[in-house]
Structure formats: C-alpha cells, structure tokens
C-alpha cells in the first residue's frame, strides 16, 4: 500500500513536469514547425535563474520566480527573432541551431556555476503522512499547479479568440494570413507561451531535485519520446504520452537496480516502436509530406 502511494505520488509529480515540457515543445512544433531542442535548456536556465535570485541576490521566492520566468521568455523571444525566424524553412538548420543554443546555455552555466549539484528552496515546507508514507507538500503543490496550468492552456486554446488564432495558424499558415491573422505575432506569442510552460515546469518541479548544468539532456529525450508517442503537434497526445512515459520512468527507476541509466532508453524504444508501427501516434495528426 505504501509502495503504491509512493509510486503514484512520484509518478504524478514527474508527469506534471514532463507534461508541461512536452506540451510546450509540441505547441511550438505544431504552430511554427520548429523542433526546439533548446526547450529543456530553457527549463534548466529557469532553475539556475531562480537559484541566482533567491540564494545569491536574496530576493523573495515569488518575485524571483516571476523574474526568472519573464527573463526566460525574453531569451526565447530574442533567439526566435534573431535566429530561428530567418532559417525556419530548413529543418536541419533549425535542429542544429537549437541544439547549439542548448549547448551554449549549458556552457555559460557551466562557466559560471561549475558542475556541482545545487538545490532551490521549495514553495511550501513540511510533509503530510498518509498511512506511513511521508508525502511532502511540495509534491502535492507540483501536481496541483501543473494540473491547473494544463487546464488553463487547454481552455486558452479551446475557448479564447487567441487560441482559435493559434490553432488556425497551426492548421494552415497561408489561409490564416488571408483571414487577417497576424502570423508573425501569433508565432511570437506561441514561442513565449512555450517558454513560459518550460519556466513554470522548472519552478514547480526543480525544488524536488537538484540542479546542475547537464540536466537538460535527460528530460529532452523523454519529452521527445512523449511527443512522438502522442502524435507530433497534438496537445492532448503529448499529455498522454508524458503520463505514460513518466509512469514507465518511475517504474524503471524504482524496480531496476541500475535503472537511472535506462530512463532515456525506455522512452526512446517506445518512440521507435511507435514510429514503426503507428507513425501518427496515439492522437496524432499525420503530416503526409514527411512520410513515404
């Protein structure tokens, strides 16, 4: 019983983080056709910014989280305008540039903070005891916040005028332009929403773990697996993909002795299997021009 509670709490907390990251990645890919390998680097950057603002500069937690998320949005928008906007049409160039940006962020952080483990302080202290298992309030907070943010995102996309415009651009850019939607603005807004999701994920999940400059790689493989599993460009699909893969990760880490090494492997194998047998994913939109 206690094991089940532990598993479920861990699963939901990890899944909260991965769903936020995967929906951000999927949103940007679906709307702008940009495979943003620097997405988890932004997540890492937010963690380090929060650390800087709270532990080094001594600001309050809420203020520093807001500052960190807004500066990450500024970073994302500026690299979108400066670099990605000019080479959007070449997929190889986009992948290489975003990967180079991720390496750049990693190296800058490595230069400033060195490769040591650090922690950021949690929003809420203390823990709850459920039938002998200590569940910290931060875990519960993470689960609630990520759920609320996800429902907010879905409501934004489904109900508001802005969400309608974003979906229109994702479906057909040229028709959206003809209908009077400012595609450039929509792409910028999508980029900032995606960066904001990465920032929020970092703010809620990172107090549970430690931060170090190489931590962007593992989540990246997992969210790519999740996004492909659910179907590229589909928000619902990436949420379910992240739920499934984070459950697999929690199982692997808990029950296999050397499980830490196998996290990425499970998601990558799932991705290859999905691409071979059901290429459109669980809920996916199939892009006809990318298949033979």
């Amino acid at each position, binding site marked *: 019983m206690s094991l089940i509670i532990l598993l479920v709490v861990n699963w939901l907390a990890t899944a909260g983080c991965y769903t936020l990251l995967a929906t951000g990645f999927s949103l940007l890919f679906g709307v702008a056709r940009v*495979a943003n390998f620097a997405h988890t680097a932004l997540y890492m950057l937010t963690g380090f910014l929060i650390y800087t603002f709270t532990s080094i500069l001594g600001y309050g937690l809420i203020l520093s989280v807001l500052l960190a998320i807004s500066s990450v949005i500024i970073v994302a928008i500026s690299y979108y305008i400066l*670099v990605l906007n000019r080479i959007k049409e070449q997929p*190889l160039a986009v992948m290489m540039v975003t990967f180079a*940006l991720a390496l750049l962020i990693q*190296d800058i952080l490595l230069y400033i903070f060195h490769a040591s483990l650090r922690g950021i302080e949690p929003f809420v202290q203390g823990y709850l005891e459920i039938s002998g298992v200590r569940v910290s309030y931060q875990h519960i907070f993470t689960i609630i916040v990520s759920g609320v943010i996800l429902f907010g995102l879905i409501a934004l996309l489904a109900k508001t005028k802005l969400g309608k415009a974003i979906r229109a651009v994702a479906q057909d850019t040229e028709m959206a332009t003809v209908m009077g939607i400012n595609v450039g603005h929509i792409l910028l807004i999508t980029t900032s929403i995606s960066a904001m999701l990465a920032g929020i994920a970092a703010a809620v999940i990172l107090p549970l773990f430690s931060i170090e400059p190489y931590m962007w790689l593992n989540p990246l493989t997992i969210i790519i697996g999740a996004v492909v599993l659910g179907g590229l460009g589909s928000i619902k699909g990436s949420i379910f993909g992240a739920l499934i893969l984070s459950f697999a990760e929690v199982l692997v880490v808990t029950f296999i002795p050397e499980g830490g090494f196998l996290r990425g*492997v499970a998601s990558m194998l799932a991705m290859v299997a999905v691409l071979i047998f059901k290429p459109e994913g669980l809920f996916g939109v199939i892009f006809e021009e990318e298949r033979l």
Partner: protein
Amino acid sequence: MYKFFLNNFYFFKLNILEVPWRMVIFICIILLAFIPLIANDYILRIFTFACLFAIYAASWDILGGYMGQLNMGHAAFFGVGAYITALCNVNLGLIPFISVLLGSLFAVATGLIVCLPALRLRGFYLALVTLAFPIVLNGVVMIFPNLTGGEMGISGLSRFADTPIDNFYLLFTIMLISVFTMWKFTDVQSRFIRTGVIMRAIREDEITARTSGINTTLYKVFAFAMSAFFAGLSGAIYAHMIRVAGPSSLSLTLSFNPIVWSIFGGISTIYGPVIGVFIIYPLIELLRLHAIGEQIRILIQALILIIVLLFMPMGLTTWIRDNIEVTCLRCKAINIFIKKSCRICGANLHLEKQEVRYHRTIS
C-alpha cells in the same frame, strides 16, 4: 543486383587538376603531408585525430548531404565500431588490422538495422528515430558491465603504430583513400560511377526517381551501408588510437559534431566536411591549452555554427568556390576567376560585367 554492380563499379577515372578548386585541395594535401616536419608531438596528435574525424564527417555527408537522410545519431556507427574492435582486440587477441575490419563490418550491420525504420520515414521523424539509436546502445552498454566495462569502458587495446609520425602517416593515407573513395562514389560528374547522380536524384525528388526506374530502396540501403562502414572504420581506429573504448564514443556530442563540421565546411560536397574538420577541430583543441578556452570551447563551436548558418547557409567551401570559380557561358567548363577568357573554347567569361559598364558609359 548484378546490373547495379555492372553500372557502378566500372573503373576510376582521374581528372583532378583541371579546375581551380581541385588545385586548392591538391596543394592542401601536399602541405598537410609536410606537417610532421614542423609540428611537435601535441600538434601532430591533433592532426592525426583530425584525419580520423575527417573520415567520420565525410561519412555523415554521404547520408545527410547526398541522400538527404538527416542522421542525428551517427555516433551509433562510431560507437559500434569502437566497441566491437575493442572486444575483438582485448578478448580475442586479434591484430589491429583484423579487429578494425570486423568493427567496421559490424557497423555496417548496425547501419542495416537502422535502415529498417529509416526507409519508411523522412525529415523530422527520421532525425528522431536515428537520434534514438545511440541512446539505446548506451543503455545496452550500461546493462552489461561485465562485457563492456560499464562507465569505464574497455581499456588496453594494442597500439596501431609505434611513433606519432608513423601514426600520422598511416592515418593520413587511410584518410586520403577513404575520402577519395567516398568522393568518387558521390561525384555527380563522374562518367563511370553513377551512384552520385542517382543519390542526388533521390534526394531532390524520390517519387520522380522511382518512376524513372531507379530502385530507390537499394540505393538508400547502399548509402546507409557505405556511410556506416566508414563511420565504423573511424570509430575502430579511434579506439586503437586512444586505446580505450568507452561510452563517450556513443555520446550525443559525437553525433552532432559531424553535422557541425559538415555545415561549416559545406554540405553535400565530401571535401567540405573534411576541410571543416581540419579548420574547426585543431582550433577547438588548441583552445584547450588555455584555462578559459577549455571552458568556452563548446560555446565557440556553437557560435561558429550559428554565424555560418546565418551568413553562409551553404557552408564555407561552397561560398569560397562560388567566388573563385567562373563557369563558361558557352561550354560550361569551370575556370578560375582571374581569367578573362575560357581555357577551352576561348569565349569571354565576364560578359555580364562588361554589359553593365557599357550601359553606364551610355547614360
């Protein structure tokens, strides 16, 4: 299959020095051959590794450049070559020549396995699938620590050659032979080996290529096998050079480096990645000598990549070649830019500039 061999393996025809760009490459090769006279052991070692990575980068260019199959996991072939040669050399006691050959053949087998999903996908999906393979192999390496040594890898491989100079000349020769073979197989203007034209046709429009009677699947498998062979060869030699085969030979950085070199040098021109390696790799390694350079070398590599992609989207060598070569308008022969008339038919080369001058004098 029989017709495939008859069409493509006729014989090699040498026409190297007719055009300026080939002259430049010829001079570079001569200069490189004299490096051991002026360099110390450290620099020599850097250039030896540059020869090795030149094979690796050129092998990526066959797949990524000529076939248009974006392979984001090229380190899978490299790592398989390194691990198999290490296992053969340390556990079975084979001599380096045979273990290197075995390593590259196993890399070809890996290439054929990667082919299975890759033949059905393209673009972004293909990139994701190939990205997965080194990560999966890394997990496999970690699961069997008794066989593969886990984090530490397999150490104690035998040496290739005794002195650094021997090593350099050995690798230099291997590099020249492999790169020449790859270049010949992908040369579009070659008269006797048709794979270059066919590969380019498949990259530009696969359906049209298929309707004109080309067996596209066979050529894709061929490209994967050849690319995997040379990547495995470089991996196997690398393991013998550093005498360790570890998980670093399957790392993501190693998958992305050949792409960086190819993009810098010029994609789908075999010699472009080679020149990219010989410029970037020594630069990055020399930065290691400084305390600050050690920490910012990946940063500098990333900045170089971004700047090249923004200002020279086809790469350095293509940019230079476009500036030093002029194609004759009448007979389509390639001339150096300082010539006024074509070296074959004698037609005027700079016709457009003269017209502009003429208009200017009238107005």
